[in-house]
C-alpha cells in the first residue's frame, strides 16, 4: 500500500544531562540504557523512527515519562532533539533556521495543549486571532477568520468572553480554534482532553471526530488513555522508556501485541469496537470463493456490530468482502470468545 508520508521521523534521540552531545559522541550515537544510567543521563526519547501519513490520525500513547510529550516537542522543535532527522516537505526540520521555523509554525503547524495555553488577558476572539496577529495580518481579516473558527468549534456568541469566564471544555475549544486559525497542514494535539472531566472528554472526542471528518488534517495526537486512542486512532504508537514499542492499527495491536507491555494495554481494550469480523472468522477453504446470498456480514465490520446477528443465528454467519464473495464464517463460539474471552481472540 503506497501511502504518502507527510512527516518522516528518523532515529530521533533526546537526552537530558550535563552535555548530551558529547555523551552521544562517546557512544557513537547509540548508547544503551545501561550507558545512560551509568553516566546519569536521561534518555527521554531513544532512537525513535516513524512516518506520519497524510490525512491520518496517528496517536502516540504511553504512560507519563514514556517520552510521548517529548517526541511531539521534538517534531515541532519546541525542544531540540539531541540527534536524528525530521523530514517534512523534503527538508530536515531540525536544520531549519529560527526564521524558517517561525514561518513553518505560522502556516503549516497547529498545536493544542493539555492545559490549553490560552492568554488570560485576551478575549476568545483575540486568542483565536493571535496566530494571525503575529503574522501582522490586517485586523478586520484576522478577526473574520477567527470568527469562522469560533463558529466551527461551536463557541459563536462567546467571542468576547475572557478565558477565565469559560469552562474547561470551552477553553479547550478556544485552543482548538486557535490552532486551526492558520489552516495548518499538520495538527498536533498534546493530551488535549486529559484535563477535562470524563463526560466533557467524551463530548470533546466526538467533536474532534466531527472536525476531522470535515477538515481531513494530518494529525499527531498524544494521550495516555488507551480507550481514547482506540476510539480516535487510525494508527497507534506505544512508547515506553523513550522507545517506540509498537506502531500499528488498533486491531493489529489487539491481535498481535509486540510484547507484554503492549498486551497489558490491549487486554482492557474494547474489542467489540476494534476487532473486525475478518480477524476472527474461520477462513473459507474454497479455492474460488462462492457468492453468498442471504444473511452475511462484511469482513471489515467491527465485531460489536455483528454480535447480535451472529449469536441469534443457528448456523455460522458467512463473512464476505465488498463484492459479496465469501471469505469465511463466524459462529457463536468464535464471537463469544473474541468478545468475552480473557486470553487470545482466536
Amino acid at each position, binding site marked *: 500500500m503506497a501511502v504518502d508520508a507527510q512527516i518522516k521521523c528518523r532515529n530521533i534521540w533526546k537526552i537530558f544531562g550535563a552535555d548530551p552531545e558529547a555523551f552521544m559522541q562517546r557512544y557513537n550515537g547509540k548508547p544503551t540504557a545501561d550507558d545512560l544510567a551509568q553516566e546519569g543521563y536521561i534518555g527521554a526519547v531513544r532512537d525513535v523512527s516513524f512516518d506520519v501519513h497524510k490525512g491520518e490520525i496517528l496517536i502516540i500513547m504511553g504512560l507519563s515519562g514514556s517520552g510521548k510529550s517529548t517526541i511531539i*516537542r521534538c517534531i*515541532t522543535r*519546541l525542544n531540540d532533539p539531541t540527534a536524528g532527522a525530521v523530514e517534512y516537505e523534503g527538508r530536515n526540520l531540525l536544520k531549519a533556521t*529560527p526564521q524558517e521555523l*517561525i*514561518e513553518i*509554525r*505560522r*502556516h503549516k*503547524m*497547529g*498545536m493544542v*495543549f*493539555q*492545559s*490549553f*495555553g*490560552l*492568554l*488570560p*488577558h*485576551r*478575549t476568545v476572539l483575540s486568542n483565536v486571532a*493571535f*496566530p494571525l*496577529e*503575529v*503574522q501582522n495580518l490586517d485586523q478586520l481579516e484576522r478577526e473574520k477568520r477567527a470568527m469562522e473558527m469560533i463558529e466551527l468549534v461551536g463557541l459563536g456568541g462567546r467571542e*468576547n468572553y*475572557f*478565558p*477565565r469566564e469559560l469552562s474547561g471544555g470551552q477553553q479547550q475549544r478556544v*485552543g482548538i480554534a*486557535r*490552532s486551526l486559525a*492558520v489552516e495548518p497542514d499538520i495538527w*498536533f494535539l498534546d493530551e488535549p482532553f486529559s484535563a477535562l472531566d470524563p463526560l466533557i472528554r467524551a463530548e470533546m472526542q466526538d467533536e474532534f471526530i466531527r472536525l476531522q471528518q470535515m477538515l481531513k488534517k494530518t494529525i499527531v495526537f498524544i494521550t495516555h488513555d488507551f480507550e481514547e486512542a482506540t476510539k480516535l486512532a487510525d494508527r497507534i504508537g506505544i512508547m515506553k522508556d523513550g522507545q517506540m514499542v509498537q506502531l500499528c492499527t488498533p486491531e493489529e495491536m489487539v491481535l498481535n501485541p509486540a510484547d507484554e507491555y503492549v498486551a497489558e494495554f490491549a487486554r482492557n481494550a474494547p474489542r467489540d469496537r476494534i476487532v473486525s469480523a475478518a480477524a476472527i472468522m474461520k477462513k473459507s477453504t474454497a479455492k474460488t470463493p462462492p457468492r453468498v446470498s442471504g444473511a452475511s456480514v462484511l469482513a471489515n465490520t467491527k465485531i460489536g456490530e455483528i454480535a447480535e446477528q451472529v449469536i441469534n443465528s443457528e448456523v455460522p454467519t458467512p463473512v464476505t468482502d465488498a463484492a459479496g464473495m465469501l471469505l469465511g464464517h463466524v459462529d457463536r463460539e468464535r464471537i463469544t470468545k473474541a468478545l468475552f474471552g480473557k486470553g487470545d481472540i482466536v
Partner: protein
Amino acid sequence: MNSAVTDLGKTPSSSIPGAHSFWVQIVAMICLTVVLSLVLPFMKTWPQEWIVPIKGWVTQFFTWLDKEAAIGSLKFKTVTRSISWLLEQPLDWAEYILYRGIKARDLPAMFWIFLPVIGLSVLHTKFGMRRCLMVVATIWAISLADNVLFQFGLFELPHTAMEALGVKKLDALPWIVIVAGAGILGHWIGGWKLALFSAGCIGYLAVMGLWRDSMRTFSIVLVSVPFAVGLGLGLGIWVTRSKRAAAIISPMFDIMQATPHMAYLVPVVVLFGAGQVPAMIATVIFAMPPMARCTILGIQTVSSDVEESGRMSGCTPRQLLWKVTLPSSQRILMLGVNQVVMQTLAMVVIASMVGAQGLGHKLLFSLQQLRLGAAVEQGLAIVLMAVVLDRLTQAYANRAPGELASRETGWKAKKHFWIFLAVAVAAYLLAQFVPLVEKYPRAYTFTLGRNIDFALRAFSKHAYDYINPVRDFITIYMLIPFRDFFLWLPWTTVIGVVGLTAYWLGGIRTTLLTTGLIGFVILITGNWEQGVLTLYLVTSAVILCVLIGVPIGIWASRSDRAARAIMATCDTLQTFPSFIYLIPVIMLLKVGDLSNVIAILAYATVPAVRYTYLGIKRIPDVTIEASIANGTTPFQRLWKVELPIALPEIMLGINQTIMMALAMTAITALIGSSDLGQEIYRALPTADSGRGIMAGLGIAVIGIVADRLIQAWAAERKKQLGIN
C-alpha cells in the same frame, strides 16, 4: 542522611544532622577562642595597626572619579553632570504640572506636541505596559530635543506669542483637579470605595496645608517610578535571557537589597551633588531591584503551555516576550510596580538628607527641632500618600487579567479619561476667576500640630514620671549589660562560631563566604566595634520582635476574625516608610538605646507575625485532625505539632525581620546611636564616601550572613519534613 533521620526522631526541635556533636563543637570553639584571646590580646581586639585603610581607598577612588577620571577627553564629571541634566528635564515637567506652574519663557515649543502625544496614547484602545513605556520614552525624548532646540533660540514662537497676549505664566494643575484625578483613578481601578478613599486622603494633604510639599515629593515619585520600573524590567528580562547576566546581576541584587537606604546616598552625593536629582537617582537605584526580581519571577512562572502555545503560534522572540510572556505575568509585574512605588516613597523621604525638598525634608527638620506635633502631621501626610499609592497599585494588580480591556466601546470605554479631562479643563478655566479652585486657601487649613504639641507636653509632664523609670530600668539593667557582653566578645569567637555554624548548615563554601565577608568588610576595615553595636541593637530588637510577633501570629491562626484585623494592620504598617516609626518613639521615650530598639521593633515585627500565621495555616488539615484524634490538648497541639512543622516558615519570617531591623538601624542613627548606621549618617554631610559605603556594606554583610545561615537551615529542615 541516615543520622539526620534518626536524629529527627530523637530531637524534633533540632534539625542539624548530628546536632549533639554540633553543640559540643560550638562550646569547644567558644572556650578555645575565649581562652586564647585572654592570652593573646590580638585575638580579642583587632589591633589598630592591622587595620587596612579600605575606607580611605574607596574615598580616594570616588574623589578620583569625580575630579580626574576621564575617557579620552570626556571627563567622568561631565558624564555625571549630563546624566543629572537629562534626569532634571522630566522632573521639571512633573513639577511644572503638579505645583509650580510654568513661566512663559520656560515654555518650549514642543509643549504643543507633547500634549497630543499623551492624549493620543491614552486614547489608544489597547493601552498596555509596552505602550506606557514608549510614551514615557517619547515624552522624555521630546522634552530633551526641545531643550536643545530652545538653547539655540529655535522655536521661540509659543512664548513670544504668549507674552504678546500678556500671559506671563501658565498655572500648575489646580489642587482640585489632582484630588479629582485621584478619585477618578480610584473609581476606574476599584470602584466607588477606592475612589472616595483616594480622593479623601489626597484632599486631606491640602487641608493640612502640606500641599506644596506633598506635590514636591510626589513629583520625584512620579518621575522615579517609570525609570525604576523600566530599568528593573530590562534587567529582569536580561537575567532570564543570559546565564552570564544572571551570574553577575543576581548576587548584586542580594547585596543591594541588604544594604540600607542611606548607604546609597553617600556615593550619589559625591558624584551628583545634593538636591532633587541626586535624590531621584538614589531612589531609582534603590527601588529597582524588586521590579527586576518580580520580572524574573513573572517570566519564570509563566506556564509552559502558554509559552509553547505562543511559540507554536509563530511568535518571533520579541513577539513572544511582549505579547505572551509579559502580559501573562501581568499580576506579578504589577506587584513589582507596587513595590517600586512603596520603595520610592520610602527612599524619597530618606533622600531629604541629601537635600531633596518635600515632605521628608520638612519631617527631618521637625524631628531635629523636636517639633513633634508638626512631625506627626508631616508623617501622616507621607503615610496617606503611601497608603493611597499602595491601594491603587495593589487593586490594579489584583484585577482579573483582561478586566482592564473593557468590553464597552466608544467613549464609554474611556469614560474615566474623558471625565478627568472635562474636570481638568473646567477647573483650569474656573481657577482663573475663583482662587479657591486653584489653591486651597491658607485660611481653611486645619492643622493639629499645635494641639498635638500641647497634648504631648501635658502627657510628658505626667507620663514621663512613669515611663522614665521603666525606660531607665530596661536600659541600665538589660540593654547595657547585653551591649557590654557583645562588646566584650572576642572577634575570634564571633567569627569562629559563625564559621562553624555555617559549616554544619551549608558546608565549607558557606563558611568561607560568611567568615570572609565579615572579615574583609567589617573586621579589617576597623568597623568591628560599630558592627558589634549594630549586631547588639538588631539582636535585642529581633528577640523582642519574636517574643511579640510569634504569639500574635499564633493568635491570628486561632481566630479568623482576629486574623483579618491583624493582617490588615500588618498590610497598613508595611506601607509606612521606615522614617515614620521614629516619631512615636521620640514622643514616648526621647532618645537613647531603648528608643532605637523600640523603633526597630515597631518597624520589623510584621514579618514575624505574618510568617508565623502563614506557617501554621499551611499545615495540612489532616495533620491537625490526626493530632486531635490522637488526643492532644490545644497546648500540646501547638507545642508538639504546629510549631515544629511551621518552624522553617517562621524562621524565614525572622530572617525578614532581621533584614528590616538592619535597614532600620541606619534610620535610627538620626536619633542617636553609635553603630554602623551612625557611620553612614556622619559620612553624609562630609561626603566621606569610603566611610559611608563601608559602613553600609557592613550592615549588608550582617544581613547576608544571617540570611545565608537561616535559609540554609530552613531549606534543610523543610527537606527533612518533606515540605515544599
